[in-house]
């Protein structure tokens, strides 16, 4: 459970309710009145903690993002070899989302609808790992950092589509495919297919 959504406090109860509502129905039609009703609070009580629904969303998103980064980095650092570290980092991300399906929907699917900047921030951790991939620099052309960002964006958009259409079950089943996508440009077809066979 995310600390920010611990229902032991009023603020936590609001965040837990928000997370549940977003997880079930998305946030496109979500109104403050829906949240107040579901949490059993007044507008006054809500505004004692948050300026707006977006503000509440931001608080939850920020904690998911921090936890995701922490787990991905820990898994990555635990391995010496780049591919193993990347595989571990992606597995850690998927594990976090599978354990908390509403968090997966809020972070991967709904965030770009609320504020486009968030989705672009969310791929930073993965892009940093991809930027450390073993690569050939004998024919430098495009900026390697841009290629890493594009690849991270491709993996994240694939993950978002999986969660949107099939929930976290689909995401969990696709871990090998996500790793395949990351490995293919840097390590080639055979290495990428090894990642598919592992899953």
């Amino acid at each position, binding site marked *: 459970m995310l600390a920010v959504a611990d229902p032991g406090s009023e603020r936590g109860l609001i965040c837990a309710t928000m997370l549940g509502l977003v997880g079930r129905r998305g946030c496109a039609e979500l109104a403050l009145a829906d949240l107040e009703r579901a949490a059993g609070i007044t507008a006054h009580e809500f505004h004692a903690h948050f300026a707006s629904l977006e503000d509440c969303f931001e608080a939850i998103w920020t904690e998911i993002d921090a936890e995701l980064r922490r787990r991905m980095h820990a898994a990555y650092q635990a391995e010496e070899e780049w591919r193993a570290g990347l595989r571990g980092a992606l597995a850690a991300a998927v594990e976090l989302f599978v354990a908390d399906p509403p968090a997966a929907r809020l972070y991967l699917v709904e965030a770009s609808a609320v504020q486009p900047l968030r989705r672009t921030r969310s791929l930073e951790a993965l892009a940093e790992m991809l930027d450390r991939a073993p690569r050939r620099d004998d024919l430098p*052309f495009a900026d390697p950092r841009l290629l890493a960002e594009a690849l991270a964006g491709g993996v994240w*958009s694939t993950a978002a589509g999986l969660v949107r259409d099939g929930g976290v079950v689909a995401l969990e089943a696709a871990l090998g495919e996500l790793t395949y996508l990351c490995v293919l440009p840097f390590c080639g077809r055979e290495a990428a297919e090894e990642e598919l066979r592992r899953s």
Partner: protein
Amino acid sequence: MATGSKAPGSGAEPERLRRLHGGRHSLPAEIVAHNQRERLLAAMAAVCAEQGYNQATISHITEAAGVSRRTFYEHFENKEECFLAAYDALDSHLATLLSDAGGAAGDWPDRVAAGLAAVISYLASHPRFARLYLLEAAAVGEAMVSRREASAERLVELLREGRAAAGRRDLNEGVEEALVGGIFTLLGRRIVAGRAETLGELLPAALEFALVPFLGIDEARAVARRHTA
């Protein structure tokens, strides 16, 4: 050269769209209505660029377009319908650009290069439309999901031709979708950074990224260099 469609506002930025003079005139009603609709679509892009879709209001849009609220509601039921019309017009124009550019080029890698260059170049020269298309569309909700998928699918199809052209039928399913998602993300990050007019600088990276799974790194870089150096 695109010939089959027009972007909202006939490719012009909103501030260049002129209001028809007020008062009595002899212009046919359909021309007046067309001009108003074009201005509303361009205003939608301008307001989204300034405020974001979520914060945009009908008042913002009518003020930017220089039309009354009544005129707005003669054309659209609500803000979402106006956005969808702007998106559809822009999407149709980009589809034509992609098709024309790809049709004029030779082999598959050249068609990918020409298509990406045409689309990215257009978006770079129309920063507000770029923001509407690549960022704000995500805020609109369910009605946009199938549209965005259809938009991406055109590029996916173009890339998928690389399986046969480059002898890479063995690639795993979903590679092309991820590539297009990555390219859109790359462009979106530049727009978020407030530098949409420099999107053209991303063409080498976008092209190399799109071609590597099919051609391998050496050939992908060679094609990207040939088309963007």
